Each structure stands twice: as C-alpha cells, then as structure tokens.
C-alpha cells in the first residue's frame, strides 16, 4: 500500500482551570458557541466529579475550522484531554490554579498564552495556619514568565465584581483582548448576548476584561506583597501627644519611629496618653539597653522588637476593649459598607459573646476579682450563668448602653485584676530581656521579645498562647549562653505556631532535652 495521505489542519487547544462554582463550565460553553458560530468544529470535555464541590477542575477544548474537515473529507478526531506541552491557550480562574497548570506541564514557552486572574482564593491549608500560611503569589508569576510564551496576569475577579458580574465573563473578555483566538470582539459579545440571564453585567465585565488584556504589558510586573508602612506625622495637635512624638524623634533611631508611632496610636486608642507615655518610657529604657550592647551594629533590632511587641502586650484584648471596638461609630459605618447596605436599608448587628468567669473576674477590681474566682458559691453561680454565650444586639438601646458602659470602664482599667496579671507578666518578660542582654545574649533577648507573638486571642485561645509562651520562656532560660541560642528559640517559636495541639513544639522541646542533658524535664510538659 502506498503512503497514507495525511491532511493538514491542527486544532487550537485550550485548557481552562477553575474551581467549583467559578463558572468554568459556562466559559467553556461560551467558547464552543463562539467557535461553532464562526464555522469551526468545537469539542469540550471536563471531569467535574466531586470537584464541583469547591475542588479544582480542568475544562479542555479543541477547535478546528470546518473548512479543514471538508478538505480532509471526514470529521476531525479531537483529543479528550490536554497533553503536556501541546496547549495553545491556558486560562486560570485563580492565581494558584495557573501554578497548577504549569506544574502539570500544560504551559510551554514555544506556544502557550497563559491568562490568569491574579486574585487569590486561599486554600483551607493556607487559611487554617495559626499564623500566616499564605503562599507567595510572585512564585507563580516568576514561573509564568519562564513557562509561557505570553503571560497575561490581571485581577479579573475585581473587574468582574466591579461590573456586578462573575469571573467567567471577565475571563472571556481577557481571552478576546489577548488576541489568542482568531475571532473578533463582536463575535465574543454576540455569544454572551445569545445567553439567557445576566447579559448586561456579563457584557460590562467582558469589556473590562477585554481592555485590561488588550493593554496588558508584555511582561506582567510583580505583585506588591509589602505590608502597609506607618507614616510618621510632623506634629500632633494635642500638646501631650506632641511631647511623645518629639521624644520619639529626639531619642530614638529613625528605623524605629514607624513602629513607635503605631504603638503610641494603638495605646492612646486603647487607654489614654499617659498609658502611651508609659510605653514610650519603657521603650526608651530598652533603647538605652540596646545601645549599650551594640544595637547600633545590629540595626537596633532590640528596640524595634520592643516597640512592636510591647505595644501589643500592653493593649491586651479584654472585655473593655471588645465593648469599645464594637460600639464605635466607625465600626457601625464599616459594617454597613462591608455588607454593601444601601442608604434606604437598615443594618443591625448581633454579636456572639461568650465571656467566661475568668473574663468577668478580670474586669473587677483586683481584690474582688480574685475573691470571686475562688468563691465556690457565687463564682460557681456566675460560671453556670455564663455557660451559654450571649447574643448581643449592639444596635438596640439596651444592649448598646450596656456595652458602652463596659467600654467606659476603661478609666478604671489600671486597677482591675486582668491589668495586674498582664503587667506582672510583662515585668517578668522584660526582666528576662534585660538580664539576657546584660549577659551578652543580645540575639536571644530580641527573639524573646518576638516570642510574645503567640500570646493572642481570647478565652481558650489566649490560655493556649500563654502556656506556649511560658514554655518558650523556660526554654530561653535553658538556652541562655549556648551557641545558636537565638536561632533555636526562633525554631521553637515556629514549632509553637505549627499546630493547635502543640505536638510540634513538644517534639522540638524533647529533642532539645536530648541534645543538652542540661535541659530540665518539665519543659516538654509545660508546652502541652
């Protein structure tokens, strides 16, 4: 038999990566509509399965001109799944899905256009972290610049929301705007008009996506992941505040100004100017300590750490603070804005409060609070009363006034039990810092300041943080004077944030004990 005749014509291959509920199916169907209208063969396949329930899934399409099929005299045989290295257009409805596409080899430098939305929909593992578990978005863009022939990265989710539509529409627009498909803008828009519902919003989102993609830079810039920095004002209206600002500027190295100003702001907001002054005073003492032990060479690491952690420690979250924040006018406004309430709509918030006996006692004068804590009868009574949480309608007069009054207890805060407990803790903590700095363990002292990071939250969460912190402090004492002390403590801090049950921390502490016979046994137990 003489050589089999092979006919020309290779399909355009498209992969759409989306998560359940993002409308990846709608987008795929639109592309099919579009192509068939323009006289092309179009095939789409997908493997939704349980992925429809928030998982990630791929829609795969192949398009081939009818003319080519006619020339060949038989219908095309199109593939059912993407082949790595053989895709022309890859569309990702979320940034990490673009990353997944590259991991699967679907994106290839010779020919793939990669269009991705830069918005993030965090995965459970990222969200559930005790601290910050969010992956670096720029890793994806860095890979994209290498892997794709053309990379278009835009926040298409934001554009869709701006148009009151969903991301499938803005993605469709970006595809059109990228020019990756041989169809005109009108054809795309006609496809949307052919649909039944939400045509106008879809068209708006399409237009925004189209423009953005058409004007997209050849190589997308990196995503700015820096945290908001603090602006240091020239002067403050109130003389006392101005005095603090002046003190900061005069006595502290510039690198620390931002954090100190943030700290002063937080503490005035939390208590009063006197309290903020106390804070600045403590920081000044630590700055002096810092200077004596080579802070200048260390970039004032100790002063910076102190300015940050002390401000947070002093503004511990108590019932008064919560009541204060919940009753502010700015908060009422923020809620209205967040839920997108229109002017003619009313918004009432219900707070879910569950103060325990400890919190109640903490809000009483030290003596009384301690008595109540230990009183079987009345304490037990309060405990029982507090078994169930309170639903507080902060928009009604009774509850608002109640909360407002609690917030008003601010002026007595310094005499309350909780304050006594907190200040005692701070004293011990800072004492340790000074001690270690004096004995030349500068880095360890800095790390100890940062360890305060894990003391946060309310009720059980707060207790957990307290216990871990205590364990870390004890470990610090063990580590004092050893090589790599600071680094080891930092590892322990990370371990303490690794899991809720504290398994990782226990394991690390146990290892520490094994390595240094000097270690004292109770450490591991305390971590639990």
């Amino acid at each position, binding site marked *: 038999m003489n*050589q089999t005749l092979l006919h020309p*014509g290779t399909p355009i291959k498209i992969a759409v990566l989306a998560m359940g509920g993002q409308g990846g199916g709608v987008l795929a169907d639109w592309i099919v509509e579009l192509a068939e209208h323009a006289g092309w063969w179009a095939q789409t396949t997908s493997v939704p399965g349980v992925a429809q*329930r*928030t998982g990630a899934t791929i829609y795969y399409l192949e398009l081939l001109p009818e003319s080519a099929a006619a020339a060949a005299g038989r219908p095309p045989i199109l593939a059912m799944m993407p082949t790595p290295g053989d895709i022309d257009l890859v569309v990702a409805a979320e940034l990490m899905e673009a990353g997944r596409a590259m991991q699967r080899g679907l994106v290839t430098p010779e020919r793939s256009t990669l269009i991705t939305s830069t918005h993030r929909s965090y995965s459970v593992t990222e969200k559930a972290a005790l601290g*910050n578990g969010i*992956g670096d978005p720029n890793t994806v863009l860095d890979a994209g610049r290498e892997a794709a022939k053309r990379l278009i990265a835009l926040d298409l989710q934001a554009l869709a929301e701006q148009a009151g539509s969903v991301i499938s529409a803005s993605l469709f627009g970006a595809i059109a705007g990228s020019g990756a498909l041989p169809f005109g803008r009108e054809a795309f828009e006609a496809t949307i008009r052919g649909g039944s519902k939400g045509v106008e919003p879809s068209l708006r989102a399409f237009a925004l996506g189209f423009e953005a993609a058409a004007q997209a830079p050849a190589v997308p810039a990196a995503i700015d992941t820096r945290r908001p920095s603090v602006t240091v004002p020239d002067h403050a209206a109130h003389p006392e505040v101005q005095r603090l600002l002046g003190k900061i500027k005069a006595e502290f190295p510039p690198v620390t100004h931002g954090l100190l100003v943030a700290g002063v702001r937080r503490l005035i907001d939390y208590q009063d100017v006197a309290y903020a002054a106390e804070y600045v005073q403590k920081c000044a003492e630590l700055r002096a300590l810092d200077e004596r032990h080579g802070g200048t060479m260390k970039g004032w690491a100790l002063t910076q750490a102190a300015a940050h952690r002390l401000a*947070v420690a002093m503004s511990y979250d108590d019932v008064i603070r919560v009541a204060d924040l919940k009753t502010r006018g*700015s908060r009422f406004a923020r809620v209205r804005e967040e839920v997108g309430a229109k002017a003619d*709509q009313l918004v009432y918030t219900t707070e879910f*409060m569950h103060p325990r006996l400890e919190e109640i006692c903490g809000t009483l004068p030290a003596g009384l609070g301690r008595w109540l804590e230990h009183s079987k009868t009345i304490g037990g009574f309060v405990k029982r009363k507090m078994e169930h949480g309170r639903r507080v309608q902060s928009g009604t007069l009774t509850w608002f006034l109640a909360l407002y009054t609690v917030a008003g207890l601010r002026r007595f805060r310094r005499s309350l039990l909780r304050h006594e407990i907190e200040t005692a803790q701070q004293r011990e903590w800072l004492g340790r810092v000074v001690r270690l700095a004096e004995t030349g363990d500068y880095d360890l002292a800095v790390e100890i300041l940062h360890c305060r990071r894990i003391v946060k939250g309310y009720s059980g969460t707060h207790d957990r943080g307290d216990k871990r912190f205590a364990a870390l402090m004890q470990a610090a004492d063990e580590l004092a004077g050893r090589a790599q002390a600071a680094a080891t403590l930092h590892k322990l801090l990370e371990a303490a944030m690794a899991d809720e049950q504290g398994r990782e921390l226990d394991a690390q502490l146990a290892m520490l004990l094994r390595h240094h016979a000097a270690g004292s046994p109770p450490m591991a137990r305390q971590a639990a």
Partner: protein
Amino acid sequence: MAERSFKKEVQQLRIPAGEEFRGEGILAITKALLQSGVGYVGGYQGSPISHLMDVLADAKEILEELDVHFETSASEASAAAMLAASVMYPIRGAVTWKSTVGTNVASDALANLASGGVTGGALVIIGEDYGEGSSIMQERSHAFAMKSQMWLLDPRPNLESIVKSVEDGFELSEASNTPVMLQVRIRSCHVHGRFVTKENRRPRYTLKEALANPRRDTSRIVLPPASFQHEHEKIERRWPAAVEFIRERKLNEVFDGDFEEVGLILQGGLYNGVIRALQLLGLADSFGNSRIPLYVMNVTYPVIDEEVVAFCQGKRAVLMLEEGQPDYIEQNLHAILRKNRVDTLLSGKDVLPMAGEYSTAAMKAGIEAFLKAQLPEALATHAPVAVDEAATTAAAKPKAAAVPITFHPKVKALAEVVPPRPAGFCTGCPERPIFAAMKLAQQDLGEHHVSCDIGCHLFSILPPFNLGATTMGYGLGAASSSAFNVKSGKRSISVMGDGGFWHNGLTSGIANAVFNKNDGVIVIVDNYYSSATGGQDILSSRADNPDRATKNPIEAAIRGAGVKWVRTIDRTYDVARVRDTLEEALTTTTDGPKVIIAQSECMLNRQRREKPLFAQKVKAGERAVKERFGVDPDVCTGDHACIRLSGCPSLSVKDSGDPLKEDPVAHVDNSCVGCGNCGEVAEAAVLCPSFYRADIIHNPSGTDRFLAKVRGAVIGWLQRRRAARLARFAL
C-alpha cells in the same frame, strides 16, 4: 429537584430525523435510547452518569409520549433487577449507574439475569469512573462482563459512535439473548459533540401488553436443573451468536495504514487519544488517517479470535493498548495468537503502564517505545504534524515541547506555594456544623472511632475536620462499625447520609445494629436530597414531587426498624445542641444503637429555591431581612481557630492593615449566605467575639424607620462624644 435542569436541552430529543444534534454525551445517549425504541429505563445517579438520570427525569413528557417508562431506582440492584422485564417479553430495557461501585451493588441481579438470558434487548449503560476526576477505587468493570458473560461495548468517544453502539447493543443483546454493558468513560459523558439523528421509535412491545399477556418459562429461572443448562447455553448458543453478529455487523473497526508490518490494537474508548499520540509522532492527522494500521475494539468482550488473527497475520509486531489492570485482553490475545500459531510479536503493558489512566502522553510514550523496537524508520519520517508546514491554510504550529517545562527550577519552586484543593463542604453547607460539633465533642470526651460513608459528608475526612477512619461503600457507614459491638469505655460513631440510608443503610446499618444490639452511635445526615450526586429527590425529600412519593420521614423508618434511642435535630447549625446530643449519645446508659438524625436542607438547593423568592419580595417592596456574617478585623487576633472548625469557602483571611498585627485576620467575603455556622462555632467553642451577624432590612417598615431614628439619635450622640475624645489625641 436536581441541581442542574435540562428542561431546555431535552428539547433536542425531539429534533426530527436527519438533522444534526449538538450537545453533551449523556444527552446523545438519551436520544439514542429513544431512537432504539426502548420500553423502559431505570438507574441510580452517580458521577459520571448523574446527568443521564437528570436528563431522563426532565424528559418525562417526551418519554410518556413514546410510552417509555422511566424510574429512579432505589439502588443499582433495583435497577438491574428491573431488567427482568426483558427476560420473557420482547421489550428493550436500559439501566444506568456509576461503575464499578454500582455494578458491585447490581451484580447479584446481573448474574441471575445473565444466567437465564433475555428476550428483549437489555442494555446496562455504565459510567466508568476511572482516571482523573474519579471519586472511587480504581477498578475495571470488564471483570463483571467476563464472570457473568455479558458483552462489553467500549465505543470510540465521539457521539456518532456512542449513539450507534447503543443501537447495536440492543440488537446484539437480542441476537445472543445476553445482557450488554455499554461503557462510557468520564470525559465521553461530558463531551460536547454532534451526530445526525434518526426518528424516535415507540417500543415494539409495551409493558401494558406484557401485563395483559403474562408469560412464564421455568427454563429461564435460575434453579436446578435449568441453572446448569444456562451455563452450557452461554457457551454453545449465546457466545457463537454474539461472535457472528459482531463480525457480520463489523462492530469492531480496522483502519489501514502504510506501515503494514506493525499495528495497534486498542479499546474503542482510547481511540481519540491514540490518534493524538500518533499525530504527535508525525504518524497521523487530525482526521483519523494513520500510517500505522489500527484494530479498534468497540466490543472489548468477547474478543473475536478470527478478527485478531486476521489483523495480526503478516505483521511483525502489534501493540495492545488496554487501560487498567488486570490486562485481561492482552492475556486473551496471547492465548489467541498461540492457539492459532500466529508468531506476530505482541507488545502491551511491557511498554505501557500496567496501572493508571492512559493519558495521551502515556500512550505516546508507549507507542514510541514500541516503534523504536519494532519499526524505528516509522519514527524517522518527518517532524510531528509536519503536514501543517506543507499546508498554507492552517496556521503552522511548532512541535510539542520535547523537554517538559516542569523541570525548570522556577516551575519546580511552585511545589512550595501551590496548595492542594481538596473538595469540601460548600458555603453554608448544613453538614459543616455537624462535624464542627463532632470535633468539639471529641475535645470533651476524647477521640473516638468514626466510620464514614459515601456522600458529601465524607469531606469530613479532609482538613480542617480530619474526622473518620474508614468508608466501606454507599450506605455502609453504620455497618462498618458493626465489629466494634463490644463493651468498652468508648462507643463507635458512624455517619450515614440520607441517600445512603435509603439506598441500603436502613437494613445494612440500622436494622443490623438493632438486631445485633449494637451500642454505637449513628449520625444520619438528612439534607433533604441525594446531594453529592446532584441534589436528586429521595423518599425523605421535603419537596413536592408530582412523579415521586416524597416526605417519608427517616425517623419513622428507623423507629419501625426498632430503634429506641432517636434524637432528631431539625437545625444542624445549632452547633452546641448537636455537640450536646452527640455527648449524650456517647454517654447514655440506654442499650442498643443511638441514632441522631441531623436535618437541614442542602444549601445549594436551598439557595436555588430561596434567592429568586427573596429578590421578588424586595422588588415588590415588601419588608425582607437578609442575614450575613462578618468579622471585626480589629477584634480578630489572627489565630484562625474559627477556620480550623469551619473551612467554609466564604470564611477567608486578609491582611489586618495594622502594622502591629502581622498575621492575617479572618474575613467573611460576600459569598456568605448567613447560615450562622461561624457565630455558633465561635460561641460553642468559646473562641472569640470577632464574629457578628448583620441583618440587612430591605424596604424597612414605618416602625423600623421610627425605631432606627430614635436609636440613631442616642447612639450617634454617644459615639460622636467618644470619637471626639479620640480625635483630640489623634496622632
């Protein structure tokens, strides 16, 4: 009411003969059934054929016009048993389910059916849930065809071939008195394609006629001595009849190629992938013209010896492409070639993966290896898809990347940041609070052994809940705890969905536990639908369904089965209550199974029902209250304990915006449906006061506005007073 409506699509089932149909695979299969004059259809939903059931349900009118009876079977076993109607009567029947799991359930009835044989065509359409996107154990339905001697069709994955094989399947079944299995892969079910239609046909012989003239023939019943006779019939009569029909009608296809000394033998379902693989090797075009000869098995059981011998004779070597394991066909081919003294070399799993999906890439590698060894010159011809360079019309495309980009260090680095995306509970899912409560109960009473079931609730085994030790099959949650029926300080906990309960859990789980005096705790998740498969109605659904009997409470059923300790929770979002009920069940002194029925409607379905109604109300100017949740970023400290007890898609994190708070704070995005889980959990677990529920009152009444005015005046004044103080000290 199913999750997806096909009311619009089913109109395609009416398009007149000779016109072109364009649509999804499952819709094409439905059309094919009507074109074949099917008399009755049944089945059980499950990916990838869930939509086939939904289509049939939405096609009710059309089916009635044609006297076709459609039934939503209670289980795959019921569906298979339904085919009994084709034993004595010349009625064509089709049933469908997810395989292999569904075939496992159905196999008792199938084996009986296959033994006695059929008069009317009996077609089993199985959605082979294998490879990417599959949600079950990776097995082959092939084995069932072999053990019960049913014929297995695996057509080329284009609508034309699939439709044709439905029609052929019925005829083959009738010609050989044998039930036929038609296998469609996941992607074939969801593929969008086209085919030219034929006229819909009414059944030749209707069920009414059958009932009017009952027939019986004990030789068709599986009972000695007939049962022994059946086995001989299978070999002496039915097998040869099938072989003859398959050969005569050329159900399998041979495609010639100029490299005649080699050839490929493949399952029909792999055809498109094989063509693409050959194309990437420069040996085929986009239209199925291949330089390597192909023998395409649209029938994978039985294997037709004569066809195999004819194809292999005169060839140096052939490659068998057979997806999955064991390699039944390859083994069969070896036997055929040897028995017929054909010395053609047979390659297969030696160059192709023994296990796993046959992706285009995998098959390309296998074919390449085969040709390298058997016909290297075939690979040396020209660059892949070089035909395009010759052509001026189609845009020239460079060849596929030789070295995958995945080896690039920057792409490798993605492993650090790209997170897994396990399927999870939807926003507002009523099952989330149940497992949050279970987690809290375990915090109080210690870890317990938890047996899971099949259904959305199985997502409890994934983060953030990490609950559940085993899952033994649909409706078998309680049964899989039955061994733990011993006196001990701790009881076992079993989970079962309402879908699984009606499928078989009532007997296999509940009745079994009652009869054996099992002391364990059984949680039945009643979300009003068979939700995981697409929200189909079941006996206990609350919806008014004109065609099905709904509103049969689960509690009545289990009390009937003899359960004494039953607690029904009609609002699963009450986390504290669910936790307390669980703790009571785990500690009570009452003997026998403790059954908790946790009821709340599947949020996907509920939203679909309520959203339009709410919109109408608002539009009509009526007072309407919308609830949603939020987090106060300044109160939240960024510990995310709430997320570890929820995992709700709408509960996310964002930067705190506070330079002193480096950890991101919790944040509820506007996809929130206000189910209440966040607040309930924060309260029950004594987490933190950051959560708030916002009630947005649309079209407020006069009283509303008056109250708001009064409150606003007082509250506003106090707020301004405090704000002023802060402003004085502003920095």
